[in-house]
């Protein structure tokens, strides 16, 4: 009951009965997707979905807590590579992929905690975090790019330099291998679960502290909160969610290259989150799905302009829809909406 109350709190879009009916309908349509789409199309949909955890993590970090990171893809890459190495070395057993997944997430948490310790416990100014996360990502890309030789072989797995790591095992529990439709359901259920957990977390006291820190760090500290600890906490959480996306990515495509942690992929999550509306989780999730679909469709058609279009989109959103396009659409006065006041009174300044 209390959980239900938290799910329906004011820190995300949509609280009315009609909203939840619509939400259920969309989930139902996603669940029923195999009935009307091919396995190939379902596989594409998996790809759009699997980016959502990373985006939700960035949304909590940036939109709710006011910490901007340009380096979420670093954790995406760390988890992907770690999974590849661990699962690739444990191919004899059926639980290799599970160990690899846990290992990937733990490594993300550890790296995020170490990095976050230096940054947040140094109480640096706001602009330093995005810069250092970006630099970290670029160095990771450079490092992975020069792992071509045989000395970069870990057990049975070759890191592979710029060609990347190939033949990464799919996810598997017992003898059941998640591929095709099965992987689609796996990604869908994880994404929906992450969404609900995030929504509950942001509506709970933890979320209020996030917002309090975003609004005024000093006031929050002088109410007795150890701000650094909370910042570190949400940073590690976001790192692990980015890691989750990275795991799903390598389990989906069975390969990963250093360019996944390059400058262009690093920019994309920021674009998804900004276009959706950074402090509304649902808006971020929707934007992530749609923009991944658009990006894929554009580059599928051989359109080289996709990165430029994404950059232009970011520019336009920052100039004209600073609170996000999806949020702007959601807060239009639809004719059937009876409440005249905006959906929520929180944070109209951002």
């Amino acid at each position: 009951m209390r959980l239900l109350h938290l799910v329906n709190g004011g820190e995300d879009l949509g609280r009315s009965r009609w909203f939840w009916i619509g939400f259920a309908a969309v989930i139902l349509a996603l669940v029923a997707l195999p009935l009307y789409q091919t396995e190939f199309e379902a596989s594409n949909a998996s790809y759009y979905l699997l980016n959502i955890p990373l985006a939700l993590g960035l949304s909590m970090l940036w939109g709710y807590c006011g910490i901007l990171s340009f380096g979420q893809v670093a954790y995406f890459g760390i988890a992907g590579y770690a999974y590849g190495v661990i699962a690739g070395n444990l191919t004899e057993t059926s639980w290799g992929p599970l160990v690899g997944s846990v290992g990937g997430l733990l490594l993300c948490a550890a790296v995020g905690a170490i990095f976050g310790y230096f940054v947040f416990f140094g109480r640096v100014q706001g602009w330093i975090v995005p810069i250092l996360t970006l630099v970290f990502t670029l160095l990771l890309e450079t490092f992975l790019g020069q792992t071509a030789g045989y000395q970069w072989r870990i057990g049975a797995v070759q890191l592979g330099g710029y060609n990347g790591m190939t033949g990464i095992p799919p996810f598997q529990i017992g003898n059941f291998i998640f591929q095709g439709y099965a992987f689609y359901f796996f990604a869908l259920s994880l994404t929906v679960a992450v969404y609900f957990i995030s929504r509950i977390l942001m509506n709970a006291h933890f979320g209020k502290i996030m917002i309090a820190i975003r609004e005024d760090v000093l006031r929050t500290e002088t109410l007795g909160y150890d701000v650094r600890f909370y910042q570190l906490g949400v940073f590690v959480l976001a790192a692990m969610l980015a890691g989750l996306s990275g795991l799903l990515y390598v389990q989906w495509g069975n390969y990963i290259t250093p360019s996944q942690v390059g400058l262009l992929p690093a920019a994309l999550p920021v674009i998804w989150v900004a276009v959706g509306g950074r402090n509304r989780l649902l808006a971020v999730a929707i934007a992530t799905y749609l923009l991944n679909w658009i990006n894929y469709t554009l580059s599928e058609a051989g359109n080289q302009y996709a990165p430029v279009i994404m950059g232009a989109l970011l520019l336009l959103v920052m100039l004209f829809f600073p609170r996000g396009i999806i949020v702007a659409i959601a807060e239009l006065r639809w004719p059937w909406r009876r409440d005249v006041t905006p959906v929520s009174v929180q944070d109209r300044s951002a």
Partner: protein
Amino acid sequence: MKMQPAISTVNLTKRFGGVIATDGVDLSVSSGEIRCIIGPNGAGKSTLFALLCGIHAPDGGEILLGGRDVTRLPAFRRVRLGLGLTFQTNRAYHNLTIAQNLEIARRRNSARVDSDALRRYQHAIGLFELDQLTDLPARALPHHQLQWLEIAMVLAGGPDVILLDEPTAGMSPEETMQTASVLRTLNGMGLTIVVVEHDIAFVREIAHRVTVLHEGRIFAEGSVAEITAHEDVRNIYLGRA
């Protein structure tokens, strides 16, 4: 029997570059006292406040809270030990509702809120007329009530001592007097209050004792009557010393 001071400093010193902003300050505020710290612009009031909060680290000396050395503790630890703080500019969360503001303030320290502290908090909410407005966003409040909200937030954490930096800045004379009356009531309920202020009318209204800072040092200390009668204090305010 001598009571332990609620908050005190020993030889507190802070330099900025070549300038000494706080120069060997020995301050001692007894439990249950209302102390006002006054001084002309540049006397070192803000620096002393920032040192007591934990925003700046002193170059020398000690700060004691209820007899405990807190000189090296960060701000949040001091707050957890029973210090409440408000700032010169209003720092309530303007984009959150009043209920959310108070909730954030209450939750962290709920363990240390005893029945006295709870009584003070509830009393303040009533006197500040905030109890009916809980679902309003804070930014909808008029200025004086925003200031009151911040004091109420501080009280929600159940402090023993509150440190207020110009709490009546920007208030009308009536609102200032109303604030003074609430603070007196809270003091009557056992709260120690330290106010950094330069509105003498307000100081006259509430202070038990007054500390005058000048050029980073304690220049004079005494009751309101003693201080206002003090020739040299009047001189430094008129810029003649």
